[in-house]
């Protein structure tokens, strides 16, 4: 093969895609090993009697709520119906401009208590603290708007549990999910954080704040996200457990040791990727102190969340996530390739920087050059064959995730739902990913210009039907 500019370009593009696919394959193998390990171990981790005891570690569920009037009551009801015996729920109304606070008062008959607490973490002014007279496990904090991280910090200040579980206000949690999330803390005293799986709730059927039946989404955009979420959680996070570099515990569902969070100063209020940022800081502190700080992802505890169903909302979300990633990579660049930070510094952060951080730029350059090459005749149409092969292999990886998902959770059943998901997987590869690349580039542009705010959120209430 002669190395004329056209061929060289194709070789370069295929090399980048090849490296990305190779990295994915390594993660697939790692995830398979970990899954087998977890399955064998968890069969013997049925702490049914123990975790139903009121002496089990107290868990405070932290629910930051900003303009959540449509879904807050249902979410909180779902949380209070969790089967965990030693539970407290702290909802923080983060200066909502809608009727969130009124909805909470109406649904849970709140009674004011004096706002005296130990303010270990700095937050915006707390206007009032309320406790439900219907269920005293519910505490509501009304404060001035300061963003999600600020609301979480306010909740951590007030939390009385030794473990805190951060969830989004629009998240539904499976009844036994907390038991499963707490189990790793019992088994290994070095565990400081455990994350669970997030599934999409759109088009599901629910009963009393709990999801009872999942169906394949009807909306193409939500369907593509279903495939993407499965890949992100089953491969992206599970695979990092044995590699020791798990850097993300989803802000929508994760349990932390409260003391550890307090020691690192809580959530960073000036970061848009506050969940990942906190985990990286927890890891860093652990390594700096030569402590074993175990941060794990557990696939079985499941929570459901509503996925954006419109291009506009999704664009904002992806843009924010990407800016969050860049922010974390930039803040903790000193950890990169430093053996002192072991797998987090030597593997995970470089992976996130190269594969996740640089991906949109590389993809954009690759596609642009290919189009220019085709237009100017530098690349012959037949030269695109390797590119097509790479895409087909990428698509195969998506199907492998679906098979994985089926084996682990059996989320969707029936041939019709599976065929739908096949279509979504193709859509995700061919349309969704290129579009997200554009959004991430937009995020990069905003990041370079110093934009750090979250942007407006759109809430439609749960798209689930009551069974």
């Amino acid at each position, binding site marked *: 093969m002669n190395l004329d500019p056209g061929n060289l370009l194709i070789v370069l593009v295929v090399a980048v895609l090849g490296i990305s696919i190779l990295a994915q394959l390594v993660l697939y193998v790692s995830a398979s090993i970990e899954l087998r390990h977890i399955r064998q171990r968890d*069969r013997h981790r049925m702490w049914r009697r*123990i975790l139903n005891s009121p*002496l*089990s570690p107290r868990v405070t569920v932290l629910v930051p709520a900003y303009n959540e009037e449509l879904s807050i009551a249902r979410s909180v009801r779902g949380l209070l119906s969790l089967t965990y015996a030693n539970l407290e729920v702290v909802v923080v109304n983060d200066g909502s401009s809608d009727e969130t606070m009124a909805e909470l008062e109406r649904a849970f008959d709140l009674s004011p*208590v004096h706002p005296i607490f130990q303010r270990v973490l700095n937050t915006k002014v707390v206007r009032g603290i309320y406790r439900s007279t219907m269920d005293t496990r519910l505490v509501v904090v009304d404060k001035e708007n300061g963003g999600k991280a600020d609301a979480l910090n306010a909740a951590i200040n007030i939390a009385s549990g030794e473990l805190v579980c951060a969830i989004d206000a629009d998240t539904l949690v499976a009844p036994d999910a907390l038991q499963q999330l707490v189990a790793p803390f*019992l088994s290994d005293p070095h565990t400081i954080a455990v994350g669970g799986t997030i599934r999409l709730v759109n088009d599901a059927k629910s009963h009393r704040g709990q999801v009872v039946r999942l169906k394949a989404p009807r909306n193409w955009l939500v369907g593509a996200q279903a495939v993407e979420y499965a890949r992100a959680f089953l491969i992206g996070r599970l695979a990092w457990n044995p590699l020791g570099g798990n850097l993300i515990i989803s802000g929508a569902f994760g349990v932390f040791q409260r003391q550890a969070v307090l020691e690192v100063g809580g959530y960073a209020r000036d970061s848009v990727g506050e969940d990942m940022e906190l985990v990286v800081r927890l890891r860093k502190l652990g390594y700096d102190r030569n402590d074993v700080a175990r941060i794990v992802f557990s696939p079985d505890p499941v929570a459901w969340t509503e996925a954006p169903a419109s291009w506009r909302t999704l664009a904002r979300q992806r843009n924010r996530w990407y800016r969050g990633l860049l922010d974390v990579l930039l803040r903790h660049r000193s950890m990169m390739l430093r053996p002192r930070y072991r797998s987090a510094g030597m593997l995970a952060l470089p992976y996130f920087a190269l594969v996740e951080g640089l991906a949109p730029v590389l993809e954009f350059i690759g596609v642009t050059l290919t189009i220019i090459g085709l237009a100017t005749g530098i690349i012959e149409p037949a030269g695109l064959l390797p590119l097509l092969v790479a895409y087909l292999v990428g698509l*195969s990886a998506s199907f492998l995730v679906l098979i994985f998902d089926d084996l682990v959770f059996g989320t969707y059943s029936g041939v019709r739902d*599976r065929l739908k998901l096949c279509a979504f997987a193709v859509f995700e590869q061919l349309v969704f990913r290129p579009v997200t690349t554009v959004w991430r580039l937009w995020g990069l542009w905003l990041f370079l210009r110093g934009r750090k705010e979250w942007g407006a959120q759109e809430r439609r209430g749960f798209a689930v039907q009551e069974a």
Partner: protein
Amino acid sequence: MKLLSPLGLAASLLGILVVLYVLGGGLRDVIGRRRQRRITEAKRVIARIVLSGDEEAGQAVDDLPNIPRRIRLKLLTELVLDFEGDADARVRKLVEVTGLAHHITRMARRRNWRYRAQAARLASLIPDPEARARLLHDRHALVRAHAAENLDREDVAGQCGTLLDHLDDPNRAVRFAAQQALLAGDSRIVEPLVAFLQDDDHPGTLWALEVAANTPDPRLMPVFRHHAKSSDAQRRAIAAEGAGNVPGAATDLLSELLTDVDAEVRTAAIGAVGRLRAVELSGLVGERLSDPSWVVRRQAGLTLEMLAPTGSMVLRQHLNDPDPYARDMAHLMLDAIATRRGQWGIITTADLEALDDWVPA
């Protein structure tokens, strides 16, 4: 497109995965449904044996050999904790008759810890007490934890020493399981517990204190007095909590702990006063309505409600307290009491008079 060309290979790989996902998944659904049906059927058989009359149970026993051993084990593991009394005796009999007991005992000796862990979860069904005790001393922490979690009440008394040693275990799951097992035990655990708690150097003292605090027995009072003087606030708090479960003997100790430097201890002491209905301490509890900690103030309010009518009187006195927090808490509590009585429709003339007393003119 040649099948062995890179494109052909990639397309074939994709095709195979699609077929595997759609058809393999469908096949898995069918097998899963069939398995679920078998499990449901097996559950029905076991429920008939365990819960129905002798004749029907006898008929159901004949169906038992049709259930694969794997499913029998799975079901017993799930159900064993849920049966008590006669049903429990029947499960044991069933396990012996079907040879499952022998199988579980064999599992308890396997080299692979996973088998031993499963045996530990069924430990109460193993007839040989030595085999049960061996699991409790297993080298694998999870096996020890499961064995402790599934101990019989009778075994708890016999293994009390081992369980107390387990409270010092470096593995938290083992400590937790041992603690729960001790809590499920009867009064025979008290003496060894007292002996264990007299020594301050055990790493598991706090865990043992929690057990003691939840075991209402006057013999534990000296232990609570001892730990109420500890420099560790958590120990003092648990001691206060425990003292609240020993009627009559603890008022002097509680009055001391009501003014402890730690808010958690004060809260526990106030709660204990409420549980003991120690009306003579209601004045001291009333003083806690001006406590710097909201949790303590709230607990004081709730306790005074429990100590009615003396407690209500103290609350009314604090409506004129110079401290705004004490005033507010008293106001909130009296309001809550009145609302609750209103809800139950039992407002009395005395209540109305009381309302007149504190509503500002």
